[in-house]
């Protein structure tokens, strides 16, 4: 059996969207291995239903499948959320940046998967609230409030993890 007429279109989509979707999955799952697995599942499902999917809504459909696959993966406990390996840097700026990244990574790990999904869709994929609502199948108001709560929670976690500089200076003096 030869390739189906729409397969080239599918392959073009795969090539264009493979990495962005994997980034989104990583932002939710916190592990590249898990993200690759879930992204692969997503593309398999996209292949199965490709002729059915309206071309104007492929991205939305793909993100919905991806996010649901992430949630499902976490529910099944197939992948723990892992901290990725941190590059070994020695210069001070890089060390500070790495420390901040560690804090943020740790803080994100303490959010719920749904909060991480909202944040990823809003601030990684730069989707408007309405588009996030469509992907997550939530009312727009719920997305707004969930985003706001997730950001507030993230700020609190980051504040908790930051050292108190004044106190350190006094102790060292």
């Amino acid at each position, binding site marked *: 059996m030869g390739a189906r007429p729409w397969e080239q279109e599918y392959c073009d989509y795969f090539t264009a969207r493979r990495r962005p979707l994997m980034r989104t999955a990583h932002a939710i799952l916190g592990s590249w291995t898990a993200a690759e697995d879930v992204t692969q599942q997503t593309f398999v499902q996209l292949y199965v239903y490709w002729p059915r999917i309206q071309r104007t809504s492929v991205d939305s459909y793909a993100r919905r499948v991806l996010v649901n696959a992430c949630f499902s993966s976490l529910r099944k406990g197939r992948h723990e959320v892992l901290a990725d390996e941190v590059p070994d840097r020695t210069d001070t700026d890089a060390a500070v940046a790495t420390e901040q990244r560690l804090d*943020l990574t740790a803080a994100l790990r303490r959010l719920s998967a749904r909060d991480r999904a909202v944040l990823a869709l809003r601030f990684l994929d730069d989707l408007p609230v309405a588009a996030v609502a469509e992907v997550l199948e939530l009312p727009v108001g719920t997305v707004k409030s969930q985003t706001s709560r997730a950001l507030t929670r993230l700020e609190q976690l*980051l504040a908790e993890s930051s050292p108190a500089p004044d106190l350190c200076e006094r102790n060292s003096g």
Partner: protein
Amino acid sequence: MNVEDQLRDHYRDDAAEMLGGPDLSAVLDRGRRRRRTRVAGGVGAGLAAVAVAAVATASVLGGSTTTTGSDPARGADPAAGPADSAAGAVDFVAGTDVDDTVQDVVASHLTMLGAPDDVYPSDWSTNGPIPDAYFAAATDWQAAYPVADGERALVLMGYPKPGESTDCPTCHEQSVPGGTLSTQVSRLQTTGEWLFMTSLVRDDGFRVSVIDYVTAPRLAQARAARSISDADATAVVRDARMHFAPPAGS
């Protein structure tokens, strides 16, 4: 730096560390296998449905499109896809003959088309298919056909959404016995495809449409490249067999 900017930086830095990614050939292998598995059951059901075709046709003419579901036949060739089936209509959705009817109608008028890629139920609030098992709640049915390189077709039929206007100021409309026939040409901004739509809105609001999507830089080229004529599309939308029972609970 506020937390939103920190997040954006964090995500950007993460991307720089991305390694690997899904492999296209592996995805295609798994996707093709899943599709074959999914359709193989449909082929079996399609073969079984041949036995009740006469009854089903009578039911369609009588206004009911539901037949007793058939279990997929055992021993269907698992490698067979819809395009490979020699058994006529493929039963994409078990438990109903609407999908078979749509294929029969299309095959009788659009003889240049092969098997559809998919036939599925949908509803007013779903942009795409609803689960096959919920076909009794469908408010519309859609069949997607590959036509030629750069051309595809979608055949739809459905009940009007309450409160939604059927007016189409950009359509060319004409009254015909039983309803209003219209044609419309437009272009999808997202894909650049030219869209040739032929529709019949019956007096009760039920709509049947054939949409021919053609990829071409200009309208004249799209018209020249079309495989489906307005006359053939009109024959499909005016075919009385294009009907299905109203959604359950309506």
